[in-house]
């Protein structure tokens, strides 16, 4: 496990406040994400997990607070500086958010069009590579999003997020709506890509299996802030009713129990 005191912090959220009308979603929220880690963000419904994600990637303007990604202030810095961020992160939305009028391959090519001098044939080849890397077959590239299943759309969305080899990928509920086998395969995919490409992964999830299988660190959102961060073992010791309920509930026990010894030995080579 990584030592968070020495690792390079690439996302730094400080004093974040999000308010919709009189409803305060976040207040004084602090969060650090280190390079190369897989951070899982959990929390009950309505605790603003997706709002946090949208705030970091600049889709939601917070009421107050500061968000720095690679040292660039997402909220305050000049547009030119923020534009360089777009090719350094990739976002996978819940249902893939593929452009419905484009084929999967064309979807993956969209971010690559920003690269000057990249020939269309080469772009196509690279898009095919990304499609294959996320585990879709070659012919899926010619299909339109409406012709794909939910799991395939998520994979295609991930391929588009990875098109420019970003340093961070944001995943919004990557395994929601997938069957357990598909979800496990998606977990493996994320972990393998993260390891081989050196990706930092920020994922919002409800899936205890995902947390257990791939997350280096977990951040729990509750009471409008990050209540606790740490490894899964740390979470089991946190003294908070919701956290205890979440990590010691029957579903959690089922998810964590059977394979724990294997994973523990597998993680430390």
């Amino acid at each position, binding site marked *: 496990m990584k030592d968070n005191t020495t690792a390079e912090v690439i996302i730094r959220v400080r004093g974040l406040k999000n308010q919709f009308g009189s409803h305060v979603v976040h207040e004084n929220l602090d969060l650090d994400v280190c390079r190369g880690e897989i951070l899982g963000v959990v929390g009950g419904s309505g605790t603003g997990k997706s709002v946090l994600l949208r705030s970091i990637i600049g889709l939601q303007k917070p009421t107050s607070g500061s968000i720095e990604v690679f040292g660039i202030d997402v909220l305050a810095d000049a547009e030119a500086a923020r534009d360089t961020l777009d090719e350094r992160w990739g976002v996978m939305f819940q249902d893939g958010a593929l452009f419905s009028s484009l084929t999967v391959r064309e979807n993956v090519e969209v971010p690559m069009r920003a690269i000057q001098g990249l020939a269309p044939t080469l772009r196509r080849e690279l898009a095919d590579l990304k499609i294959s*890397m996320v585990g879709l077959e070659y012919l899926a590239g010619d299909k339109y999003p409406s012709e794909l299943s939910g799991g395939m759309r998520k994979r295609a969305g991930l391929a588009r997020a990875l098109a420019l080899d970003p340093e961070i990928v944001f995943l919004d509920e990557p395994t929601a709506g997938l069957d357990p086998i598909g979800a496990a395969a998606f977990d493996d995919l994320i972990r393998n890509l993260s390891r081989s490409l050196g990706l930092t992964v920020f994922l919002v999830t409800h899936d205890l299996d995902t947390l257990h299988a791939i997350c280096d660190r977990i951040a729990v959102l509750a009471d409008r802030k990050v209540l606790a961060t740490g490894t899964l073992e740390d979470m089991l010791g946190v003294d908070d009713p919701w956290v205890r309920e979440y990590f010691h509930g029957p579903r959690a026990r089922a998810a964590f129990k059977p394979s724990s010894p294997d994973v523990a030995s597998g993680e430390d080579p």
Partner: protein
Amino acid sequence: MMAWLFAKRSNALTMWHIQITLHAAYGTNDRGRMDQQIRMELSEARGEEADHLRLVGALTVNTVSQLYPRLRQLEPDHHTLIDLAAVERMDTAGAWVLCDLETRLLGHGRTLELRNASEETILLLESVRRAMPVKTEPVISARGLVAFLEKIGRAVASGTAFLVELTAYLGQFFDRLARMIRHPHEFRLTALVAHAEDVGLRAVPIVALMAFLIGVVLAFQGSAQLQQFGAEVFVVDLIAISILRELGIFLTAIIVAGRTASAFTAAIGSMKMREEIDAMRTLGLDPATVLFLPRILALLLMLPILGLIANLMGLLGGALMAWIDLGISPSMFRTRLIEGTDVSHVFVGLVKAPFFALIIGVVGCHAGMQVKGNAESLGRMTSNAVVTAIFAVIVADAMFSIFFAQIGL
């Protein structure tokens, strides 16, 4: 796995260099954008078995387009050795270029050896190599005359199936209507009234204005022509016959088709999209009774009324224009209208209304039920419904014209 062989140094090389440099477009952020450059040094070992290359710089998506054509030019029947010691950064695009070269070399029974790759690079190369797409040819549909004929055949078949389906929906409507008459307590009066308001009352302003303007236009155009013969007074007959017999109800039906067929499709289609229709079925509710019957019935009741309003407004517009333009006073218009125009024209016009209403309602409901689980199909079916409904109304009107001509009305 011996895919990436780390070969021993070769000696006695005849060196020549190719430099490719792509200058940074921006050099501001913390990565310094030094990765905008790649240089390939090609050391050709004549008389030996392998080409030796050295890559310097960053092998990333920003630079591959410079390197790729060069690697493409390499002879694929030489063993090739690439030194990666001076590669600062490599991403999947860069790794793909190397893997692509390897694939080509392997195709010719040659190998690619990579030397001095860092540990992460080896990992990256491995995962890209594992993911190299295996290209399969898509099934290409046949072309030529046979395919053309097949396309026509399919279009005819699907057109026929469409007509059959529409007939089935019409039959379903009559069946539910009959059941409703036998079991009146099952009928949803509130829904009927709500739909009647939506379909009828809310359409009154647009229909009235449209008909009024049509009357004005007819009077204006007719008077211009009839004045040449000194037959101005016949403008009354012209307006009365054309509006009462044809235009009043016909244009009303066109407007209602655009307004209501699309509304039916959108409402039923979005319920279909959210599986509400399926939920209804599992709860023992019949979509035809709950959704189609009140809608089509409301249309059936409202369209004749709208047609009547259109007739009145059309005559009003015509009379106004005839008065202004030709000096035919309203009372003279009235006398001429009553004497010169048979009441059968009103009958011939309004008798078409229920048929148009059925066409519009059935087309709208049918299109709504064809919506699949996504928003595009909802949009497509909505516009399909409007086009089909208007087209069908025109066809029906033409058939009525022939019918009435044959029976001499």
